[in-house]
């Protein structure tokens, strides 16, 4: 051991730098094992194919399309997210690395790191599924800008709402079922808002000021702030 080792560096790690380190580590592990990605994409692709195969782009009447396509899109997105977003915490618990993480990073940083990771997964999910959905279901959208804003903000809301729940169920038994049961009541308002927003964007009339997008952003801000307060309580014994 070099003799200079005694002087303890006053660590200057900010919450963000710790979170980024956790995020990068999670991405690297995920890239190698691909547990979460497989779970999410498998679910999403199969449901999308099942839906588009059975309905196709003609079965729904033209007037109904904006609304019904919005519902189908968000059913696919929310439930495929619910099938994989708990993976990062659950794997951490099963591998026994949660204690090491507790000893090296502050709770807020762990939350943010895992949140970024979940948002990356959701981003990948949306990038693949939304365009495919639009093409396969013949979903004409009048205001693409508003539509993308809605999809992105609701995706962020999905991440914000489920990350702390994933942390809790990772330390409980019956994890998979519990995660959906706990997350769904919290996500339902967001889902209703997202469906309405997509319909409004698709129809394209009276979409001034993107009301639903603003509601989704409010949801994101509230959930992240609440989670930053509550996460340390469930993180430390």
């Amino acid at each position, binding site marked *: 051991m070099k003799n200079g080792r005694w002087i303890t*560096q006053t660590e200057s790690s900010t919450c963000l730098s710790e979170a980024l380190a956790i995020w990068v580590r999670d991405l*690297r592990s995920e890239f190698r094992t691909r547990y979460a990605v497989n779970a999410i994409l498998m679910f999403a692709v199969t449901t999308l194919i099942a839906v588009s195969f059975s309905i196709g782009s003609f079965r729904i009447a033209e007037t109904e399309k904006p609304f019904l396509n919005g519902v189908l899109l968000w059913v696919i997105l929310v439930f495929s997210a619910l099938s994989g977003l708990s993976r990062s915490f659950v794997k951490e618990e099963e591998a026994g690395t949660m*204690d090491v993480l507790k*000893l*090296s990073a502050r709770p807020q940083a762990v939350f943010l790191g895992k949140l970024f990771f979940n948002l990356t997964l959701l981003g990948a999910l949306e990038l693949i599924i939304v365009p495919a959905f639009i093409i396969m279901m013949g979903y004409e959208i009048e205001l693409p800008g508003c539509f993308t804003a809605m999809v992105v903000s609701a995706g962020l809301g999905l991440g914000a709402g489920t990350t702390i729940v994933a942390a809790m169920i990772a330390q409980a038994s019956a994890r998979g079922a519990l995660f959906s049961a706990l997350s769904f009541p919290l996500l339902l308002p967001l889902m209703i808002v997202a469906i309405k927003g997509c319909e409004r964007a698709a129809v394209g009339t009276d979409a001034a000021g993107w009301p639903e997008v603003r509601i989704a952003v409010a949801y994101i801000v509230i959930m992240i702030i609440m989670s930053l307060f509550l996460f340390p309580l469930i993180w430390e014994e």
Partner: protein
Amino acid sequence: MNKGYALKVEGICKHYSQTLLLDDVSFSVKQGDVLAVTGWNGSGKSTLMRIIAGLVRPSAGRVLMFAGEEVIPKEMRRRFLGMVAPALSLYDELTGVENMEFFCKVRGVPYHRSDSLALMEQVGLGGHEKKRCRDYSSGMKQRLKIVQALVHKPPLLLLDEPGSNLDSKGIKIVENVVAEQREMGITIIASNEKREVDYADRIINLSE
């Protein structure tokens, strides 16, 4: 910057469902001390270590760590301690050096690949840094855990059965680490191995 670090453990009790695991454990250690905690299996050695590390909340009593005069707040204690324990495991899908990189960065220690490689070299992991931890033998994993606990040069070092899975060379490394830490800070070893208990100049037996 060589503050006199000290650790005070007062009246620690811990109950699990109906059993009383730890009953009023108290001691205090200061810089340069090496303390051994012994006791039968299930006497609460590991639980006591986890309470000191702040991973577990005691049913009663408290743990205070002093840097010079002022008390280090509980949330900050994690920056001043390193822990090696059978229950702590590293990231299997990452390679040895990636684990080191993660622990350096997450602890805010400036990460230089060369430093990490040098540290790994010293615990006999030279040349293994590219392999995934999954492919490490349990002895190699134990050495990596020891290195990981020292990466931020902690004044308080908690070693829970450090010699487990280690060959004679590995045990030499543990002796080195304890000797090095003795001058610099506090060491607490939880073990029943006679060899490891002899490192200590004070012993606490949880089973009496």
